[in-house]
């Protein structure tokens, strides 16, 4: 029996396994995700994904289809419902079908693996995602990435591009954060090949071994980085750069792993950071009160350093500002944070 307890201390250790996996599978442009369970399990997630994606400027509905299990399906077993849904979806010739299970289908013991192993004319990939087994958002996300990574084609020779792994498809600044990493890599003459998994097609995913470097979105994805390193020998960086020092350290780490000269790029980045801080000189000496909901973010060293650099004070009577839910990515992340604070101070 599964007696896993939830880790409530970290950002992505919340929510449902199903949602975590959907945040990845719905990023595969030409695939359809079948949620084997009641309508509600899918609807709730479609709403969330749709709202976030619309905010990111992508109003198309996520390609998610529920098997729509009813009480009858529960009593007599939902395997036929799953097979029927797979046949109907396969008839539309998607690049692949992902099948995600839910609490009730895992409880009644539907053999989704055997249903998925039938031939539907398109690849069918099963991900068990019942939330009641103690898994959380992060487990679903990791399981989805791991499963997709496991489908990779062998690679003859590593290419020149860099692969981005496990972007947070449900964060509002996902594109800005990607752009920042892309900018930093470009300053070293590097290009991003595959975004695993965002704006990718199913066939692209099989090329995950083809990059010369993998960059993980956050350290929790280390197991995925390790698996790919073991199989393809691709080195990885365990996190997007956080804050100003993080950006320069990132450039240096990339340089070390790929044996590139980074002196000039680091120097330019430091100049850019100084100029950026100078542009916020009007904030110098301001007094803030930090929204208690995000107070723990003060433990985020890069944020504290910037506050020190601009001599910002914290006091309960100051202008109320909030800190980002995720640590700010790169120099641009700090700039956006300071812009928001400026609006509050001058409000």
């Amino acid at each position, binding site marked *: 029996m599964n007696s896993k307890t939830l880790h409530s201390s970290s950002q992505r250790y919340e929510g449902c396994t199903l949602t975590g996996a959907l945040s990845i599978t719905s990023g595969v442009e030409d695939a359809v995700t079948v949620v084997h369970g009641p309508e509600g399990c899918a609807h709730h997630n479609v709403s969330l994904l749709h709202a976030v994606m619309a905010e990111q400027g992508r109003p198309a509905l996520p390609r998610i289809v529920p098997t729509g299990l009813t009480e*009858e399906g529960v009593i007599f*077993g939902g395997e036929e419902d799953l097979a029927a849904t797979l046949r109907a979806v396969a008839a539309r010739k998607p690049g692949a079908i992902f099948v995600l299970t839910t609490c009730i289908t895992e409880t009644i013991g539907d053999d989704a693996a055997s249903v998925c192993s039938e031939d539907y004319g398109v690849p069918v990939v099963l991900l068990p995602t019942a939330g009641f087994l103690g898994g959380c958002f992060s487990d679903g996300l990791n399981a989805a990435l791991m499963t997709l990574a496991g489908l990779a084609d062998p690679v003859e020779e590593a290419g020149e591009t860099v692969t981005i792994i496990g972007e947070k498809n449900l964060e509002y600044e996902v594109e800005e954060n990607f752009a920042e990493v892309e900018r930093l890599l470009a300053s070293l003459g590097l290009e991003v090949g595959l975004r695993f998994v965002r704006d990718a097609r199913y066939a692209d995913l099989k090329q995950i071994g083809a990059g010369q470097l993998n960059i993980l979105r956050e350290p929790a994805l280390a197991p995925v980085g390790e698996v790919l390193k073991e199989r393809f020998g691709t080195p990885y960086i365990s996190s997007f750069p956080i804050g100003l020092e993080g950006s320069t350290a990132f450039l240096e780490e990339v340089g070390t792993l790929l044996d590139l000269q980074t002196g000039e790029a680091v120097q330019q980045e430091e100049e850019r950071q100084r100029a950026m801080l100078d542009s916020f000189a009007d904030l110098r000496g301001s007094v803030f009160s930090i929204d208690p909901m995000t107070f723990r973010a003060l433990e985020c060293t890069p944020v504290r350093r910037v506050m020190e650099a601009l001599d910002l004070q914290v006091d309960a009577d100051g202008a109320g500002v909030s800190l980002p839910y995720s640590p700010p990515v790169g120099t641009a992340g700090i700039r956006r944070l300071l812009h928001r604070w400026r609006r509050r101070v001058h409000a």
Partner: protein
Amino acid sequence: MKQIALYGKGGIGKSTTSANLSAALGAKGLDVLQIGCDPKRDSTRMLMHGAWIQTVLDLVREKGEDHVSIEEVVREGFAGVRCVEAGGPEPGIGCAGRGIIATFRLLERLGALHGDVIVYDVLGDVVCGGFAMPMREGYAEEVYLVTSGELMSLYAANNIAKAVARLSKRSKPSCSLAGVICNAKNMAGEEDLVREFARRINSEMVAYIPRSRTVQLAEVHKQTVMEYAPDSEQAAVYRELAERIFANDQTSTPTPLEMDELEDLALQFAEI
């Protein structure tokens, strides 16, 4: 209205006992409803002269819950006993327990749960919440355990006693233990053993049904003993059981035994 449920190990003779009990009650002129709560759907077969009646869940599946009528669900068998089979999924798939819950909900809605006596014949063990449904509020108030003197049969009966004890502790207790029925294998010392077992779990043995060839003969003729051999000794036993159960107003909260107590008990009687 008297509502009773028969529980016990699979193959111990619950359906045979239930069908003959219902037939004996029906023959007394009582309005009896027997509900088979087992996906195997063979509870009422002898009352129906070997016919497999359509189950509630098959009808729901075929026609949709809103289009099932009471006439399709309730079929009249020997001695006017009204017969219902819950049915359920094929073996090895789905959730039979949820099927029992859905069946009860439909029977309520159709107004099928009435009569002088309702007999719930429930599968082998209380394997999950669904199979405890007949013991919940509004259904069987009296639970009878059917057992032989075999240890595994007593073990199953003891487990069911645990379920009854659990339900008795609820704020609105709805069911209690009404007695133990010994459906004998004709082992030495069996009657005394089951009587002592019943006493130890704070109940009473209400009937001793000897093993009889008449039961098998009736079965191959697709009839209850009450119909096939109404003048037999075995029919008299079932008639007595029916009288006893119909008149019984003594129930208790069971005190299930620990496994080692149960084994000691079986050993004690095996040595006689």
